[in-house]
């Protein structure tokens, strides 16, 4: 009975963590079917899944509240929440080029990431295939990639500005640079790790190079490629915020900087949460995609 009360009480502040709680809720019916006798166990299991994240969030808010109370100029959670409600009630307004709703800013950033990332995929994945398949190319590009990979993508921003003479393509260029490395490297590694058994099948069946590519190489490299894509989108989303702070215009990164210039701290905190949530969604989408294309290895 007390357990029931606990969950009911804990449920109220839960909406923020609803996403986190979904897997737990899905897992419940299975347990119920296997052991009907231990009826309260699934409920306790569900509680154990939802309780830690809720406690963690509550702790964070508490620390925030204390810090806000001690310093004067830091907004309290409540103030921030009120600001957020105001902000999200009209995310798509547009009063001028530098005053647009947060929705437009997020979409502008996502668009840049999509373009830069898409071009990186178009160049990086075929290049990765070639590097993985041809040893000469691997020796040729290996040192270049090792040299350029550790460079912060923002260091490429001036080059972008110089070449494209405009802020928006320069930001996209930074995204392109930071996304391309993980895609090349993971695709190449995937190609090099195609099981010898599959290649033997290809040789015995005497498959054409096209069939080898479409029926053997591509499907077996796909999981590696998707790992590269996932790493790339993570970095791209990190980089876009920084790049937009430097280039200005419309975008969540610029918005953060603009709000800092306005000394609107609640908006900065809201932007941090929004950036986090968008990044999480991108990551989860790609994890789901990767899962759909992962196959068991050969080994009877």
């Amino acid at each position, binding site marked *: 009975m007390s357990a029931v009360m606990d969950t009911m009480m804990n449920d109220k502040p839960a909406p923020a963590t609803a996403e986190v709680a979904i897997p737990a809720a899905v897992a419940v019916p299975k347990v119920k079917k296997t052991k009907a006798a231990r009826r309260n166990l699934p409920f306790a299991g569900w509680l154990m899944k939802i309780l830690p994240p809720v406690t963690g969030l509550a702790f964070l808010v508490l620390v925030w509240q204390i810090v806000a109370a001690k310093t004067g100029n830091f907004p309290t959670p409540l103030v921030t929440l009120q600001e957020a409600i105001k902000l999200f009630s009209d995310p798509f307004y547009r009063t001028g080029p530098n005053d647009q709703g947060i929705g437009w800013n997020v979409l502008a950033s996502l668009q840049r990431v999509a373009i830069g990332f898409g071009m990186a995929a178009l160049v990086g994945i075929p290049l990765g295939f070639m590097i993985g398949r041809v040893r000469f190319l691997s020796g040729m590009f290996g040192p270049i990639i090792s040299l350029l990979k550790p460079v912060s993508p923002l260091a490429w921003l001036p080059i972008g500005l110089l070449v494209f003479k405009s802020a928006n393509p320069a930001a996209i260029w930074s995204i392109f640079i930071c996304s391309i490395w993980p895609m090349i490297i993971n695709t190449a590694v995937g190609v090099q790790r195609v099981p010898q058994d599959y290649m*033997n*099948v290809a040789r*015995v*069946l005497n498959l054409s190079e096209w069939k080898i590519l479409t*029926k053997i190489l591509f*499907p077996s490299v796909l999981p590696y490629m998707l790992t590269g894509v996932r790493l790339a989108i993570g970095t791209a989303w990190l980089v876009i915020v920084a790049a937009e702070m430097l280039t200005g215009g419309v975008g969540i990164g610029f918005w953060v900087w603009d709000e800092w210039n306005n000394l609107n701290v609640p908006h900065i905190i809201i932007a941090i949460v929004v950036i986090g949530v968008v990044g999480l969604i991108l990551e989860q989408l790609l994890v789901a995609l990767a899962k759909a294309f992962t*196959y*068991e290895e*050969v080994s*009877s």
Partner: protein
Amino acid sequence: MDMHNKFIDINDVEMVFHTKKGSFHALRDINLTVQKGEFITLIGHSGCGKSTLLNLIAGLLKPSDGLLLCANREIAGPSPERSVVFQNHSLLPWLTCYENIFLGVERVFGATENRTQLRDRTRAALALVGLTAAESKRPNEISGGMKQRVGIARALAMEPKVLLMDEPFGALDALTRAHLQDELLKIVAKTESTVVMVTHDVDEAVLLSDRIVMMTNGPAATIGEILEVKLARPRERVALAQDARYSEYRTTVLEFLYRKQAHPAKEAA
């Protein structure tokens, strides 16, 4: 007549592997001929190079010295006419059973036959191994024995001149293995295939073979003895269990393996 008697002709084959740790002499002085329609098993302790010999016939490896002929032509590389059933089935996990078989069928007959004929061939191969119901399943949805049967169907569907099998039933449990051996006997009788099969199972060798090629221990392994199994076909496992000649053949192979060629690990001990 010569072609009939020497369908596969292996002459003075040597195999030396060059690795980072130095060279390894795997096979020496291999001479063997296989007749058309014959069922040959290669038996020996692990590390004796029996799989290497099979890969040489498949064309997956090239000999360091000597010559391998199949139907009077030098074996220069892998070919669908010498199709292989791999030990670990090697089905492509992203294709269904049907698609796995179709891939080979399309390659061999795609140039001369239309879509319907190719489909019929694939279906016939599935029916041959009794897996018509599983045609749209992926390899991870079927049992180990079924995967191996798809592997056999894939090899047979290409109508190979020679069927090469590398311990095809090695990873299966005893009952499934016996079942597949019986099925293989029926299929081979029906298709009149020439088969070279690697095994480490004495009963399997005696039950299936026309001749058992017994290999000495490596390194530098070679053919020790060849035993001709003159048991009438069709062979029936339960009846053979009481056949005196069957036990005799079995004893001969066991004697070779455990007296004349004691296991290398035991020798070291």
